[in-house]
C-alpha cells in the first residue's frame, strides 16, 4: 500500500468512526457498500419507472422524515410522542402561509426556512413546557396527543374569510393550498415537481440519515440512551436531563417540520386531518414495525407500510380495501407482541445469533488460534 492509500483509508476510517457506533445497526464495510448500492439504485429508479411511481415515492420520502423524528426521540431517548404530527402540520401550514404571501422564488425558499423554524420553535416550546415541568413517560404521550387534537379541533373551524394571514386563507376543514418548493432567486425559480422533487427529497433524506447517525453515535447520543435506560441515575451523574430531553425533542420537531414542508409541497395541499388521531398514530406504527432503534428500519417500514396501504385501495388478491386498517392494527399488535424492538433489530439479532452459533460449531480450536488472514 502506498502512502496515499494509507491516508485515504485513514480518513475513510475516521468518517466511518463518526458514522458508526453502538447505537446504530450497520457498522461494517459491506454494509456501507450495500448502502451506496442502494442509494445509487434509488437514484436510478425514476428512470426505470413511470411518473406516477416517482411521484408516489417522493411522498414516502416526505413521510420518512416524520418517521425519523419519532424514531430519534422514542428509540433513542424513550420519549413516546403521539404529537410529532403537530410539528409536521404546523410547518406545512407555515410554509403555505409564507409561500402564498411571498410567491417569488426567494419567498418560497424563505418559506422553507421559516416553516422549519416555526415547527422547531413549537417543539421547543412544548418540550420546555413538558420537561421542565416534570411531565414524564405516559403523561408525555398523552399531552402530545392532546396538543395534536387541540390543533385539529381549532384548525377545522378556521373556515371563514377572517381566518387569513395576509393572502393565505387557512381554509378550515377544506384545507389550504400550498405552493411547490422552488429553488431560485427573485422571480426566476425552478419548481421542484415530479422527478426533481424526488431527487431533492432523496438527497435530503440521505443527508439527514447520515447526520442522525453521527449525532446518535456521538456522546450526545450516548447521553440520550442513558436517559432512556435510567433517567434518575443519569441525573445523579450530573447531566441536565430536562435540558437534554428538550434538545432531543426540539431536534425531533425540526425533523418533523422538514417532513411537513416536503409533504405539503408534494400535494400542494394541507388540511386539519394532519392533526387528527388517525394520522397521529401512523408514525408510531411505522417506527414500531421498522425498529425503534433503527433509523434505516424506520425509513424502510414507512415506505413499505404506506405502499401496502395504497395497494390495498385496489385490493390485494382477495383482501379488500376495508381490511387496510385491520392489517395495520394487526401488524402493530403483532410486532409489539413478538418483535418488540422492531423488524430490523430483531432480524439483525437473529442473524447475529445464527452466525455466532454456526461459527461455534465450526470451531475445534479456541478462537485465539484462528488465523487472522
Amino acid at each position, binding site marked *: 500500500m502506498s502512502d496515499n492509500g494509507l491516508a485515504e483509508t485513514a480518513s475513510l476510517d475516521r468518517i466511518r468512526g463518526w458514522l458508526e457506533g453502538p447505537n446504530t445497526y450497520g457498522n461494517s464495510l459491506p454494509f456501507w457498500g450495500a448502502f451506496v448500492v442502494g442509494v445509487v439504485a434509488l437514484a436510478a429508479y425514476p428512470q426505470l419507472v413511470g411518473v406516477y411511481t416517482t411521484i408516489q415515492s417522493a411522498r414516502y420520502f416526505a413521510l420518512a422524515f416524520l418517521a425519523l423524528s419519532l424514531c430519534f426521540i422514542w428509540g433513542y431517548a*424513550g420519549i*413516546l410522542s403521539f404529537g410529532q404530527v403537530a410539528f409536521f402540520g404546523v410547518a406545512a401550514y407555515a410554509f403555505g402561509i409564507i409561500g402564498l404571501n411571498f410567491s417569488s422564488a426567494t419567498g418560497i425558499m424563505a418559506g422553507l426556512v421559516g416553516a422549519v423554524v416555526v415547527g422547531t420553535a413549537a417543539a421547543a416550546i412544548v418540550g420546555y*413546557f*413538558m420537561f421542565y*415541568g*416534570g*411531565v*414524564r*413517560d*405516559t*403523561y408525555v*404521550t*398523552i*399531552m402530545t396527543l*392532546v*396538543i395534536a*387534537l*387541540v390543533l385539529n*379541533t*381549532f384548525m377545522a*373551524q378556521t373556515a*371563514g374569510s*377572517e*381566518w387569513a394571514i395576509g393572502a393565505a386563507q387557512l381554509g378550515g376543514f377544506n384545507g389550504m393550498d400550498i405552493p411547490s418548493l422552488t429553488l431560485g432567486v427573485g422571480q426566476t425559480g425552478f419548481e421542484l415537481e415530479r422527478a426533481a422533487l424526488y431527487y431533492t427529497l432523496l438527497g435530503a433524506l440521505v443527508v439527514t440519515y447520515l447526520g442522525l447517525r453521527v449525532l446518535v453515535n456521538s456522546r450526545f447520543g450516548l447521553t440520550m440512551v442513558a436517559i432512556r435506560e435510567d433517567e434518575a441515575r443519569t441525573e445523579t451523574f450530573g447531566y441536565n436531563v430536562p435540558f437534554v430531553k428538550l434538545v432531543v425533542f426540539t431536534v425531533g420537531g425540526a425533523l418533523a417540520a422538514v417532513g411537513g414542508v416536503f409533504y405539503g409541497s408534494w400535494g400542494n395541499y394541507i388540511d386539519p386531518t394532519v392533526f387528527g*388521531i388517525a394520522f397521529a*398514530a401512523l408514525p*408510531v*406504527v411505522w417506527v*414500531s414495525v421498522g425498529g425503534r432503534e433503527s433509523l434505516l428500519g424506520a425509513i424502510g417500514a414507512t415506505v413499505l407500510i404506506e405502499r401496502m396501504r395504497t395497494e390495498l385501495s385496489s385490493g390485494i388478491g382477495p383482501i379488500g380495501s*376495508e*381490511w*387496510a*386498517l*385491520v392489517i*395495520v*392494527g*394487526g*401488524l*402493530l*399488535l*403483532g410486532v*409489539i*407482541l413478538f418483535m*418488540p424492538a422492531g423488524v430490523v433489530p430483531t432480524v439483525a439479532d437473529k442473524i447475529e445469533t445464527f452466525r455466532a452459533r454456526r461459527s461455534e460449531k465450526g470451531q475445534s480450536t479456541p478462537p485465539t488460534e484462528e488465523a487472522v488472514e
Partner: protein
Amino acid sequence: MITTPAVPLTASVYSLLAFFFQFLDSFGFIVLATVGLAIIFGMMGVINLAHGEFILIGVYGTALPYHAGVPLPAAMVVGVLVTTVFGVVIERTIVHRFYDRLLDSMVATWGLALIISQGLLIVFGSSLDSISTPLGNIGYGPFSSSIYSKIVLPLIALLVLGGLYLLFTRTNFGIKARATIEDPETARAMGIDTDRMYVATFAIGSALAGLTGALYAPALGSITPNRGSTFLVEAFVAVVVGGPSVIIGTLTASGVLGVFNAAGSILFGTFIGQMFLLMVAIVALRVLPSGISGYIDHWQQRRRADE
C-alpha cells in the same frame, strides 16, 4: 368563525339550573367514560388505548340484542357481559405481557383499537339503527333537560364510584387489590395471587367500560364503529388529570373538567366548551404532573413527614 351564540342564556334561576344540569351531564359522562380506564391504569399502570373500543363493544353488545327484540335493560346486561368476556380474553392473550412495558402497552392497545373498530365496520356495516333515549325530559321555566342523561346517568356514575369505594375498602378482594397496587412483590410474598388480581381487575375495568357503552347506547344518536373516540379522549385526559387513585382521581378530575366544559358550553358555545376541556387538561398536566390524586398523596406524605 368563533361566534358567541347570539342568545347567551339570560341569568336567572332557570339558567343556573340549566348550567347545573349541563354540569351533571358532563360529570356523569366523564366519570363513566373514565372509571374503567382508571381502574386498569391505577392497578397496573397500563393505559388501554383500546378503551374507547371496549366501550363501543358495550354499545354494540346492547344495540344488537335491542334491535333483535330484547328489551333495553336486558340488552344492557348483555352488553356488559359481552364486554367483560372480551376484556378477559384480551387480558389473557395480550395485555398481561405488558405489565412491565407501559409505553409498549399503549402501542399494543392502539393496534388493538384499530382492529376492533375496523372489524366492527366490516362485520356490522357503517351504522346500526339508533336507540331513542328513554325517560323523556323534565321541564323548568323555558328549558327542558333529558332525565336520562342529566339525572339517571350521573346518579349511576356516583353509585359506581361508591360501589368501587366499598369494593376496595370493605371487601377481602379490595384489600388484596390495594396491596397488589402498593407493592406487588410483598403482596406475592404474602400469598396473594397477583396474576389473578390483575385478571380480576381487568375484568372489572372491562365490565365498567361495557356498562358505559350499554348506558350510552341510547344516548349517542348514531351508532357507528368510529364512536369509540367520543369517549377515549375525555377518558384518558381525565385519567391523567386525576392521577393514580381511582376514586379520588376520577371524582376530582370529572368535577374539574366537567365544570369547565359545562361553563364553556353554556356561556360561549360547544366549541369553546371543548377547547376549555382540552386546555384545562394541558395546564393541569403541567402543574400537577402526577395528577390531582398524585398531588394529594404527595401532600399527605409531606404532612405526615412533618409530624
